[in-house]
């Protein structure tokens, strides 16, 4: 790959940004704790990547396609599975199964609304998320049930210094990459995003592909909710909150076109690390909550402006 070819890679900016932010943090602390920061970033980035992977496929379907029910789905899956397991190690597989089922159910309902009622996906997933959020509140009354110790240990385990969860999600991302670039399903998603009518005329089952995409996104959100609840000592009602913005931001900063039709997986990891390291950097610099949020927002917008400039030049 030539240098100019590398520079045109859409995921390059996210990785460059992540590296720059990490180096800035390291320079400020004189290199102290830099590897620990990276290790933490890998874990939190992994959660971002799980949901962003689903969101990426949904956004790639084209304008108007976005899943706003991810936070509610995560919360519901986390709540249901934690309560079912009630801290018993023997129930871990069943808990996982339940979380994935919750995801499937959420996805089915979302797609049903989109398809049968012809509700725009934004409104469909938004309205359904209200229902799922309520269901999560009702199911557990906001009580935090501790995850089984084995699950908590699993989500925080390290292999050769690397967080196990991060390795798992790298493999997941690799599978996502293959799904996107090497399978008929992935190519169909991209084709639909570029031109749904042409995709239909080319013989693609547009609605079937859309259905699978929304189901997959919700199932991944359910999986993320399960893992996050295990990681953070139980399911909290606001556990999914920040994932609404981050799932979309990670996808777009990662170089996937928000207008659909163009996607890439490597950028997801770059953008996820970038977002986490950015907050870490601002924390290290001693910024308060207010400044931190303002800076995060401005930098996200800045990245979008730069990335879109690159697109129009090509």
């Amino acid at each position: 790959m030539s240098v100019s070819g590398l520079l045109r890679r859409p995921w390059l900016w996210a990785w460059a940004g992540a590296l720059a932010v990490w180096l800035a943090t390291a320079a400020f602390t004189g290199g102290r704790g830099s590897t620990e920061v990276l290790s933490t970033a890998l874990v939190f980035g992994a959660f971002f990547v799980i949901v962003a992977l689903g969101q990426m496929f949904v956004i790639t379907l084209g304008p108007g396609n976005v899943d706003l029910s991810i936070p509610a789905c995560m919360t519901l899956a986390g709540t249901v599975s934690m309560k079912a397991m009630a801290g018993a190690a023997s129930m871990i597989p069943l808990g996982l199964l339940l979380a994935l089922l919750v995801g499937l159910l959420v996805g089915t309902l979302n797609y049903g609304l989109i398809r049968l009622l012809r509700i725009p996906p934004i409104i469909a997933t938004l309205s359904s998320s209200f229902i799922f959020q309520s269901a999560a509140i009702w199911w557990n009354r906001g009580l935090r049930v501790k995850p089984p110790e084995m699950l908590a240990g699993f989500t925080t385990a390290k292999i050769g210094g690397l967080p196990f969860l991060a390795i798992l999600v790298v493999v997941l991302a690799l599978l996502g990459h293959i799904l996107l670039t090497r399978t008929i399903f992935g190519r169909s998603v991209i084709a639909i995003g570029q031109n749904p009518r042409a995709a239909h005329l080319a013989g693609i089952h547009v609605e079937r592909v859309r259905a699978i995409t929304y189901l997959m996104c919700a199932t991944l959100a359910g999986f993320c909710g399960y893992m996050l609840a295990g990681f953070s000592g139980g399911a909290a009602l606001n556990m999914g909150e920040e994932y609404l913005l981050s799932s979309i931001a990670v996808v777009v900063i990662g170089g996937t076109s928000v207008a659909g039709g163009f996607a890439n997986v490597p950028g997801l990891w770059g953008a996820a690390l970038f977002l986490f390291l950015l907050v870490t950097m601002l924390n290290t610099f001693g910024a308060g909550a207010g400044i931190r949020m303002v800076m995060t927002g401005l930098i996200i917008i800045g990245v979008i402006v730069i990335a879109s400039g690159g697109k129009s030049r090509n």
Partner: protein
Amino acid sequence: MSRLLSPGLVRGLLPPLSLAALLIAIFWLQPRTMSYFGLNLLLNLAVPIALATIAQMFILCVNELDLSIGAFVSLVACITATWLNDTPLLGVLALAGLVGIYALLGALIHLRDLPSIVVTLGMSFVWLGLAVLVLPTPGGKVPDSIRTLMTLKPPYVPFPILASVLLAVIVHLVLMRSAWGTVLRGAGGNPKSLARAGWSILRIKMTMFALAGFFGVLSGMALVGLTTSADANIALRYTLLSIAGVILGGGEFVGGRVSPIGAVIGAVTLALAGSFLSFLKLNPDWQIGAQGAILIIVLALRVLISRAEARA
């Protein structure tokens, strides 16, 4: 009969009918609300929601989406309860500046062809961060004049109803009935032909975003006039409520098809949904969920009507 009840008419009547049905249900469940004071209490919080919904409507009208309006209204509420009260000049300047920033956002989104969802998501962080900086802990005090206005007791008609009707009629006249409004909406319907006819799409987008900012400011001031103090998270749910309100009122995501009267009705319907559910003695856990369900039901009805329309 069939001429009288054409699907197009039914479609237009759907928002007011849903609102009427909800109101009747509330009156039936709790007859005491059927009074001046009952209605006042019931509809009070609908005013800021309606203003935020109108703000969102201007953005949707030019085929964009504002995911930051809730955080923006929160910021305005914080500024109103602090600067506007303590140093009015600084407060007014800050609020005017915010409207200006909205116009610039419109320009940025248009010139660089950016996805408004992402830009406004980013801005929601900025607004929230600023709100935390202005008012780190809940508190502040609303200026007396705003408090007086929001607690006005006009004869016969409760203030929230008067304010909502006034809002709907004024925006309707300007956006739907004036030549200027038609041009503004055209930027959502067919920007290319509008540009060929010599209009500046950039200027239209900036105008629409500035209008959204202006009504967002009004929303924040109205909200703080009712609650008397503010906090940085006070209006975060307005983002979703405002989008839902516009759609509920018959607006579409693309094509400049919006309805100011419908949007106000949609906002009031959503605001009432909460009271309705508490009168039903529904488990409060399901409050938010029921709002989602009401939204889905109304949208489902709309689909049924459009199908009838297609058949006719």
